[in-house]
């Protein structure tokens, strides 16, 4: 079946511009996660959605970052007034509800801020 998809796969933007990154999770998955990964580094948790509950935004690095999940499905991560340090791969993962919370990752969006 279809996995998690993300778009665009690559995005180059100028410093100061806003960007939107999209994640289409696996159908039926109630959990959705956004992570950021800088070159050669581990995953940095950004935000977590679970069903209709209020999202866990504790990983968002600044108020320039926001995310929405519409209808419990598609999610959009928005970065306003991008900075060069925002350059990274942004990974989305979805997962079923339940105790074990295995995550299925999308291919990521590589963001480059020039």
């Amino acid at each position: 079946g279809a996995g998690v998809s993300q778009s665009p796969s690559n995005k180059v933007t100028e410093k100061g511009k806003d960007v939107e990154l999209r994640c289409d999770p696996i159908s039926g998955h109630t959990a959705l996660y956004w992570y950021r990964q800088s070159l050669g580094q581990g995953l940095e948790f950004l935000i977590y959605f679970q069903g209709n509950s209020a999202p866990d935004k504790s990983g968002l690095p600044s108020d320039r970052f926001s995310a929405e999940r519409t209808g419990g499905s598609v999610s959009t991560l928005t970065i306003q007034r991008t900075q060069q340090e925002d350059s990274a791969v942004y990974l989305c993962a979805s997962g079923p509800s339940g105790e074990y919370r295995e995550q299925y990752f999308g291919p990521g969006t590589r963001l480059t801020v020039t």
Partner: protein
Amino acid sequence: SQQGEEDPQALSIQEGENATMNCSYKTSINNLQWYRQNSGRGLVHLILIRSNEREKHSGRLRVTLDTSKKSSSLLITASRAADTASYFCSNTGGFKTIFGAGTRLFVKA
């Protein structure tokens, strides 16, 4: 920080040898999972071990969990060049899943 840590950070071995990677975590967990990442893109789930399990096998993979030491190990037996990748552990406790920084494994043919 709640982040777990893998060690070593990097590991280089010959094809056919075994590779062992370790992971430590700081909080109580429901389960611990290992993932593999090729070429800096999406992660692929390898194996999950529950907090009440001590050892689990899947093909050439063997995972152990020691909750008293808050640590886990991933053993890849008879490594292949195709095993070259970064390996991450993640632990889930409550609603948050924490990933470590990963071990970069290089298997030389």
